[in-house]
């Protein structure tokens, strides 16, 4: 990718791209980290996302830049995952919701209590990173990137209902993993 990208036609627009897109770089990179799983691939994916977004800036009609960038990033990451033609993106069957383990059990210490004891950044990041891909992306888009259900639905190209069911399942999974992690912590 040598040289400058020079596709968008309008001079004003070229300058606009920086102003509109670059403020979201941390967020784009964060999503890339969680989708790709490591720093170097995340950097490549985020870079490709911005170059692709710039090339297609002519067709951008707004108003929200952030979801648009995320949708492009998601495509970039999916292609990166599909590259070796193993073509596996979904780690587990997504639907149906076949009996999630209970979120809490009343006879143990209350989950809230456990939850509040300790939440350091690395543990949290790891727990999110360990979620299956489809659940990980909705958690990141909602909790970290702070997007509305409607935006998330557009990005993952699914109905809002799917976003809701996936998010509730994702949070239940995250919570279970969290309680389990805290349990290990206590035992050691």
């Amino acid at each position: 990718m040598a040289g400058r990208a020079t596709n968008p036609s309008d001079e004003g627009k070229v300058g606009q791209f920086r102003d509109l897109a670059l403020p979201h770089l941390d967020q784009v990179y964060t999503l890339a980290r969680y989708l790709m799983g490591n720093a170097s691939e995340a950097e490549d994916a985020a870079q490709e996302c911005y170059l692709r977004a710039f090339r297609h800036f002519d067709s951008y009609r707004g108003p929200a830049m952030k979801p648009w960038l995320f949708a492009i990033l998601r495509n970039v990451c999916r292609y990166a995952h599909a590259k070796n033609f193993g073509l596996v993106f979904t780690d587990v069957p997504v639907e149906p919701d076949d009996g999630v383990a209970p979120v809490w059990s009343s006879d143990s210490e209350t989950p809230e209590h456990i939850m509040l004891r300790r939440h350091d950044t690395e543990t949290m990041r790891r727990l999110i990173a360990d979620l299956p891909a489809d659940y990980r992306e909705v958690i990141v888009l909602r909790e970290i990137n702070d997007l509305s259900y409607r935006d998330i639905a557009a990005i993952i190209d699914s109905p809002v209902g799917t976003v809701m069911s996936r998010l509730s399942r994702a949070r239940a999974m995250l919570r279970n993993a969290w309680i389990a992690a805290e349990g290990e912590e206590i035992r050691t």
Partner: protein
Amino acid sequence: MKCEEASVLLHALIDGELDAGHAREVEAHAASCAKCAAELRAFRQMRDALSAVPVGYAAPQSLRAKLDRALPTRARASRREVLKGFTAGSAATAIAASGLFLMVMRKDDQQRILNETVSAHLRSLQADHLTDVQSSDQHTVKPWFNGRLDVAPPVVDLTAQGFTLLGGRLDYINGRAAAAIVYRRRVHVINLFVTQGAGPDRATTVQTVQGLNIWLWNQQGLNFWAVSDINADELQEFSEKFRTALHANNGT
């Protein structure tokens, strides 16, 4: 409201995504159901805890620097430099950049069909969806469609031109069964969707949806959409090669 419904909707309540009526219903249910009340409380706390620690990442300086070099600044993007970019690029790029292509297909219906081809393309990249019949032999792929479609989609061998045939698949575009002929260039997948068309042959136009390129054309009474993430120039090359081969095959 039942627990089953409440257990999903309580997340929407936490996220402030419920209208007032539904919010009241969920809250009323939680007021009378200890289990859902506990879940609501627990998930609220989890959300608070999540927002209390920095689980996001800061983009590395190396990435900022690379983008800074790659993207033109307002000052640097002089008219001359932009024009230079045009002449260096292909005709396709120039057409896309000039905005002319927007005039070709603006109707909602056509946009919807384009979106469908992109969705079908992305679906095909998920596990086990790429091909129903896997073969690099056109004489295996073409007959496979017999009886499965109301058209006989042409399958041409473009290996010599650098596009490897991977196989074929049955897909749906615009509510109708469509043939998807799958090619590969390097690590990129190209889905060529074919349905019965009407009207005279029409030349290719390029479209971009969600960062993917689509070349579409009419030929021999068929509609073609070539969808891929390869750059517009290479996808144009694919389209041209395919059209030429199809033209030659039929001796028309």
